[in-house]
């Protein structure tokens, strides 16, 4: 078990290191003159050569690549991704400032998405009416088909401009959170619901379900007592994908609703080619992803005795 945990932690650390290295290659090595990226493309030609050299020296671009890499890696290891080109503030500070707002949005959306996913899967499994089942099963694929920005815009149009129930922009109170939450939750719920529907259907056909029916269990008892737990476990395996959807969705949701957050920070950083901020965000996201997968890997054996047994055997 210890060996297993060590292996998984090692993998997580590797992913974070590799994400740093890839972004370093993409952002600092690939561009011929990385320093050019620091200036507004329109003004690039008007920048005097000595100013460019000065800026390049400030950012360490004049040093050999390997040295730059090790220097940045060393700082990144202690959470220092340098300072933002635009604002001149430390990247970590900028990130931490907007993080709470994004966290509230994504955690709320995740909860809502999980509820929606389970509701669809449970109803589709419990019903014996084919038409209702088909309808429910087609909902998730519709949810992932509608573009997030489109969904946000329609919600804005109907509930904000049309009915005036919720404010359209900004970050003030719970009312301003409702529309972004729904906008983000719907596309995130799609894959969760799809997986759950499939896994509930699969488990309903399993041999032990027949045994349970033969014991005298009713359909409801079988779903609650047997199928629910076994079918829910696989949902953990897409925790990583769900996280990715949340991040991607929050970039767009925050843009549509003009909310501050990591998504907006990302967009701003990309627009202004604020390389240190971009790298900081990518590594932060990859680290969160690795952490989530690590947690899933570590709690999965606690939920599945078969896996637990095989792990115990492997390390004894």
């Amino acid at each position, binding site marked *: 078990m210890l060996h297993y945990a060590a292996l998984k932690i090692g993998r997580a650390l590797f992913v974070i290191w590799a994400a740093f290295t890839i972004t370093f290659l993409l952002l600092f090595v690939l561009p011929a003159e990385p320093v050019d990226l620091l200036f507004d493309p329109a003004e690039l030609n008007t920048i005097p050569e000595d100013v460019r050299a000065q800026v390049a020296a400030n950012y360490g671009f004049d040093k050999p690549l390997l040295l730059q890499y090790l220097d940045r890696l060393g700082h990144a290891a202690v959470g220092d991704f340098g300072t933002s080109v635009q604002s001149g503030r430390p990247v970590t500070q900028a990130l931490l400032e907007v993080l709470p707002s994004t966290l509230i949005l994504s955690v709320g959306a995740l909860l809502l998405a999980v509820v929606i996913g389970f509701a669809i899967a449970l109803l589709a499994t419990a019903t014996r009416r084919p038409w209702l089942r088909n309808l429910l099963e087609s909902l998730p694929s519709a949810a992932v088909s509608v573009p997030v920005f489109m969904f946000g815009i329609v919600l804005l149009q109907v509930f904000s401009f049309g009915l005036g129930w919720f404010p359209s922009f900004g970050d003030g109170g719970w009312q301003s959170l409702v529309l972004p939450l729904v906008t983000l939750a719907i596309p995130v719920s799609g894959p969760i619901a799809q997986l759950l529907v499939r896994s509930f259907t699969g488990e309903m056909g399993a041999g032990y379900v027949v045994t*349970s029916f033969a014991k005298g269990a009713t359909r409801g008892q079988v779903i609650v007592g047997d199928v629910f737990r076994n079918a829910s476990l696989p949902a953990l395996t897409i925790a990583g994908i769900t996280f990715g959807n949340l991040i991607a969705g929050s970039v767009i949701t925050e843009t549509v609703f003009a909310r501050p957050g990591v998504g907006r920070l990302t967009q701003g950083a990309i627009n202004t080619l604020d390389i240190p901020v971009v790298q900081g965000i990518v590594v932060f996201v990859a680290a969160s992803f690795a952490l989530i997968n690590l947690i899933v890997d570590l709690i999965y054996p606690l939920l599945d005795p078969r896996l637990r047994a095989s792990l115990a*055997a492997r390390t004894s």
Partner: protein
Amino acid sequence: MSEQPTARAEGAAVPAEDAAGTKPLLQIAELRIDYRAQGRSWSPAVRGVSLHVDPGETVALVGESGSGKTTLVQGSLGLLPASARVSGGSISYSGVDVTGWRDARMARVRGNYVGFIPQDPNTSLNPVKKIGQQVIEAVAFNERTAASSQEHIDAALESLRTAGLANAERVFHQYPHELSGGMKQRALIAIALAGKPKIIVADEPTSALDVTVQRVILDHLETLRTELGIGILLITHDLGVALDRADRIAVMQRGEIVEHGPVRELIANPSSDYTRRLLAAAPSRHQGRLAPSPGLQPRTPGEGIVVRAEQLRKQYTLRSAGGRSLVNALDGVDLVVRAGTTHAIVGESGAGKSTLASIIAGFATADSGTAWVGERETTSLSHRELREVRRDLQFVFQNPYTSLDPRFTVAKLIAEPLRAFRVATGRAELMTRVRELLRAVALDDSYLQRTTAQLSGGQRQRIAIARALALNPRVIVLDEAVSALDVSVQAQILQLLVDLQTELGLSYVFVTHDLGVVRMIADDVTVMRDGGIVEHGTVQDVFLSPQSDYTRALLGAIPGTRFATV
């Protein structure tokens, strides 16, 4: 069981107590079940079946795959899938008609009045729940008055003990994956008994188990029947099992019961052709080797030894709940196959027989030891050299549903080895050879352009044999090549193998778990257990005067021996 069986039905969902004495426990009358076919049409799976089970009686329902026996069971338990419907007839338990009952009402009959033992113990227990919990559920669902949790535990333990699990307390706290197949099946019997039913429906309860375990489980069911006075409906594809265990047998074919009667009557005087064919095909009812079909021109096989193995060893690392352990898949095994004969390797699961076959065929490597095909040593060859050996030695897999590429037509499948070795030059010559091979396995040219999805299991296995014959090998290794097939098909394939051997002078290495089949086809036999050889010799010697206890146990466990000489 402390309680008297007659005291059980009180308050049960329906079956009235007074009726229990006079009416059959289960009465199926003119039952019809349809499956939804394409569009709005229905195709019948069970067509007007009548059957009854009386108290203290074992009735066997025998049928091959597709006969509708499983559908019949699902129908009588009210567990039909959504795509099926009962379109006629009735099902009654102790005279109470339960046809068309709603799920919630039927749930009170299941477990309480009728217990069910499923086919595959490995998938029929919830993998994430402890055995005890699963038995307790069966107790709790079926109790009449709410009991305390301690009473539940006591009842569950008692049920486990009744099912023959002596160490019930330990099993109670274990997960399914910690038990052997036989123990899982006993746990499932415990679950079936927990509701104190009057009748048990057992759907192929032992077909996933080894013969020796199968025997013990079936013995136990027999004991339960006598002790508890319950009725048993035993569904099986194995006529031998039915002959051994049942009082009455119903033979099912294409959704209908074609024969029904007491065992002795059925053997002495089978009324339907199908029963006669099944009886003829049952390996246990055969004495001695199959004779080649008349009119063949035998080819004298070469002299000497075609396959030899010396001191083959192979270890696997096993990860189990008990910790990492090394398993001796093969522990210094010798084998000698004489030219033109069939050498059977027989044993139960885990005996190492398939590992031996894989090493001989070059699919796996041995840790130590040597194998020869003809004069060539095969245990130390490169990929390329091994390919040359394939001309002399071919392999037929157990499962014809997975061993043929689903995208290939029959013609392409048979032509594959010919292409690989560029044996035939030109398309015409290639197709001539393919047709010749197809005829050799008794299939005509109309099969050439079919894909495997359009073939039955027996036809697929014929294609696999034709493909193995393509390069004119001297040896064919058959790994459980007939065990996935229905008995009647199995008999045809075995006859084909015997005929081909006679005509072509082939040698077979025939791996099987079924001693009945060994007697029909083999000249020599090697009995394996736990990676070692228990006994070897000619079939005559081993069958008539087995030297080891294990061989005797295996021979004794062959189903159908009880009436083999009738």
